[in-house]
Each structure stands twice: as structure tokens, then as C-alpha cells.
């Protein structure tokens, strides 16, 4: 039996992990560092395209700069027998594509990790462009890692995306991607929102039969609210997901980090259980920091004083009013009628947002 070696014999192929339209992924043994790695080798029909080959390597090197617990680490890149390859961290486990519907608490935990990985990449100036369940790898200990940074970019720059995009992948394309417009970090937020939507409800935001059908729905259709399909999802979680799925990138959460904060505050699960898994959030952003040691007692005394005053005022308030009297509902003012239809539309959207939960 002959062994298959890659990159001048450094990597010994153990088995094939996956085979897609663009590349074949092998599980290999790194003979130098004595560890298992995943080696992605570009498919032959693409390797013959000099432009694509150069882009593939260039984007792989950019992705190689990322170092984050929620991003699959790129170790090495090069060419073997005329085909470019990338050597990556091997993640033993599933992808989210292999999971069915998930409970909202688990989905939020996973989404927080994806957000952390994406934020790291965005901070480094890299947009993923192809966030989908198959690119979200879930290790056996429930640590999620985002894979394949840079690959979609290489494909896009060589105009391969439209030809190579299959319908299963298109479900997570943002409206601006489908329209061929500028792609920003907000694109990844939309795609992650679409993944979360699907894993909560069991179906993607839009059900479509062709890319043209998808584009039409993204332009004029309405996404069925999450809770219509899965009533167990808390309303705040639904709101966070729908926020990420806003048609216009400007109306989505401002960053992956913002999206994660919306999800975290919306999830009706103990904060400890979220943080136990979302290990990557910087400590300074966590909200349960201990008080500075020297002033602890001062803080406790202050809090006690506030509590006492609040109780006293509360009792006074109850004593002075009829407790059985219900508060009067505040009448809702209609939106201000603008001088022009455009102003009226603006007023209406501001009114809707101001009166939403």
C-alpha cells in the first residue's frame, strides 16, 4: 500500500474528509510537528486558472494572520504538484450543517462564539463572505470554530461565485451579495443571522427555487418571524435574529460584537452557562467584574442606602395612592405627518422603532 504525501512529503494523507466543488480536504499527519492537520487542496479545474491560484494563496495568507479560539487556524499554504493547498488546524467534530434544529439556549451559545470569531476577523479587516452551517465547525467539547476565511473572497475576485454557488449555499447570502453590491462586515452578520434562523426554525429565512427567486424574495418578500415557526424561542431572541436579517446593511447590528451582545442579553438562560461556552469574549467586557477591593464596603453601604430609601419611598407612594387604581394607558400619538412623503416615511420608521420592544 502506497502512502499519499503532500508538500514535499511533509504531510501524509490519512483519509479524505470532504470533497466540494472547489477543493478536496484531507486529514493528514504533519511529519515535522507530529500532529493531525486538515489540508485543503484546490480542485484541479481551478488550479489551472493562474489568477485564481494566486488569489487563493494570497487570501489564505491573509487568513493565516488570524489567531483566535473561534477561528480555524491556518498553519501553512503553498503548492503541491501544481495545486495550491492550505494546511489548517484539524477540528474533530461536526459542522452545524450536520445538526438539526437546536434549542435557543444552545444556538445562542454557539452564535456568540461565531460572533467572537467573526469580530476578530473583521477587526483584522477580513470579511468571511461565506458564513454558512458547513463552515461552522463544532468541536466535541462544544467549542465552535469558523472555517474557510478568504476562500470565498478568492472565488469572488475571479468571478467564480455566481457560477459555483449552489442553492444550498445561497440561502445564507446577504441581499447585497445576491445583488452583486459591496460586501462589508454586515454581510457576515446577515449570513450568521440566517444560520441562526435556520437552526432555530428548521428552515432558511427564504425558501426559493432559483437564485433569481431568492433575489426577488430578498427584495420584496417578508421573512416569517422566528416565533411563528418555533414559538418556544423568546421574543428578544427573535428580535435579535430579525435585526441581523435586516435587508439594508445599515439597519443590522453595528458589528458582530453588537450582535452577540443582543443575543446574550436576549437569551433566557443563565449568564454563567453562556460564558462557560463563549470563552472568547474579552474579560473586560463581562459584566460581573468584582468591585475594587479597597472600596467594596463603600459600595455595599451605598447600595444598602439606596435600597432603604427606595423601600421607604415605595411605602410612602403606596400609602398615598389608591393601590387598586390601575395606571391609565398612555395614548399613542400618531407619527408626525411630514412636509413631504419622504419626511413622512422617515417619521414613520422612526415612530415604529421608538415604539418597539
Amino acid at each position, binding site marked *: 500500500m502506497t502512502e499519499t504525501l503532500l508538500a514535499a512529503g511533509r504531510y501524509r494523507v490519512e483519509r479524505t474528509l470532504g470533497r466540494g466543488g472547489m477543493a478536496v480536504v484531507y486529514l493528514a499527519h504533519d511529519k515535522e510537528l507530529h500532529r493531525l492537520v486538515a489540508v485543503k487542496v484546490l480542485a484541479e479545474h481551478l488550479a489551472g486558472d493562474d489568477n485564481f491560484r494566486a488569489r487563493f494563496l494570497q487570501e489564505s495568507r491573509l487568513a493565516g494572520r488570524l489567531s483566535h479560539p473561534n477561528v480555524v487556524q491556518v498553519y501553512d499554504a503553498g503548492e503541491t504538484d501544481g495545486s495550491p493547498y492550505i494546511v489548517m488546524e484539524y477540528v474533530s467534530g461536526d459542522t452545524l450543517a450536520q445538526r438539526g434544529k437546536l434549542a435557543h439556549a444552545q444556538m445562542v451559545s454557539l452564535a456568540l462564539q461565531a460572533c467572537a470569531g467573526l469580530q476578530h476577523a473583521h477587526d483584522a479587516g477580513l470579511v468571511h463572505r461565506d458564513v454558512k452551517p458547513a463552515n461552522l465547525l463544532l468541536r466535541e467539547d462544544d467549542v465552535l470554530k469558523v472555517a474557510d476565511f478568504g476562500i470565498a473572497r478568492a472565488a469572488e475576485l475571479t468571478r467564480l461565485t455566481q457560477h459555483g454557488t449552489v442553492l444550498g449555499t445561497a440561502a445564507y447570502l446577504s441581499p447585497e451579495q445576491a445583488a452583486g453590491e459591496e460586501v462589508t462586515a454586515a454581510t457576515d452578520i446577515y449570513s450568521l443571522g440566517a444560520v441562526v434562523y435556520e437552526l432555530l426554525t428548521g428552515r432558511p429565512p427564504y425558501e426559493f427555487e432559483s437564485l433569481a427567486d431568492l433575489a426577488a424574495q430578498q427584495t420584496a418578500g417578508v421573512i416569517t418571524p422566528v416565533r411563528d415557526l418555533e414559538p418556544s424561542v423568546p*421574543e428578544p431572541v427573535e428580535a435579535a435574529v430579525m435585526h441581523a436579517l435586516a435587508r439594508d446593511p445599515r*439597519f443590522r447590528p453595528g458589528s458582530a460584537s453588537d450582535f452577540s451582545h443582543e443575543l446574550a442579553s436576549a437569551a433566557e438562560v443563565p449568564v454563567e452557562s453562556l460564558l462557560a461556552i463563549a470563552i472568547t469574549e474579552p474579560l473586560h467586557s463581562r459584566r460581573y467584574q468584582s468591585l475594587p477591593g479597597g472600596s467594596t464596603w463603600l459600595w455595599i453601604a451605598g447600595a444598602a442606602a439606596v435600597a432603604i430609601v427606595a423601600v421607604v419611598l415605595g411605602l410612602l407612594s403606596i400609602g398615598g395612592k389608591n393601590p387598586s387604581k390601575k395606571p391609565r394607558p398612555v395614548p399613542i400619538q400618531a407619527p408626525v405627518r411630514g412636509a413631504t*412623503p419622504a419626511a413622512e416615511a422617515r417619521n414613520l*420608521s422612526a415612530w415604529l422603532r421608538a415604539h*418597539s420592544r
Partner: protein
Amino acid sequence: MAVLCLAGCGSGSKPRAASQPKLPQAIAAALASRSDEVDQALTAGDSCRALSLAQQLQRETVAAINQRRIPGAFQEQLGSTVGDLVSRISCVPVTKKHDNGKHKGKGKHGEGD
């Protein structure tokens, strides 16, 4: 003093907040997003697209009310505002440029964004 004020304000405003109905965020965000699109189309001088979007907004509003997704306190204000918006937009094809002094057509602009 500040403590007293904070505690007092907090206890006084709570019951009133509880009586204030709210729109479900998902539907409010969807309708607001559509309304923003109407605004953008009008600002870009594309009144026909604006009208189409406004009519779409109206259909979505009516559907949301029929599905009981809009609390009663908002239904009349929302429905009438959207109806008013639709009635104020006239589809004037862009190719025929006849300014009445207010229309600021900028021609083809948008693709280079």
C-alpha cells in the same frame, strides 16, 4: 440627594411604563425597514419605485394587523399613516423630466456607490 432622586424617580415611573403598549420588535423593524426604503426611493427621485414600496408596506401592514401582530393601540395610527403615505406618492416616470420646482432628479446615480 441624588440617591433620593433616583429612587423616587424609579418608583414613580414604573407603573406608567408597564401600561405603555409596545410593538413586537420583529414586525416593527420589518415595517420600519420598508418605510426607510420608501424614503430612499423618494430621495433618489424614483417615485414609481417609492409608490410600489409604499403599496408593499401597506399590504404588509394590513397583513400584520389581520394576523393580530399589531396591538390595538397602534392599529389606527399605523394604518392611517401608511394609507396617507401611499396616497401622497405619485408615480412620475424618471425619463420625462418636468420639474415643478421641487423635484430634484439626479439622473443615473447609484451604481457607483
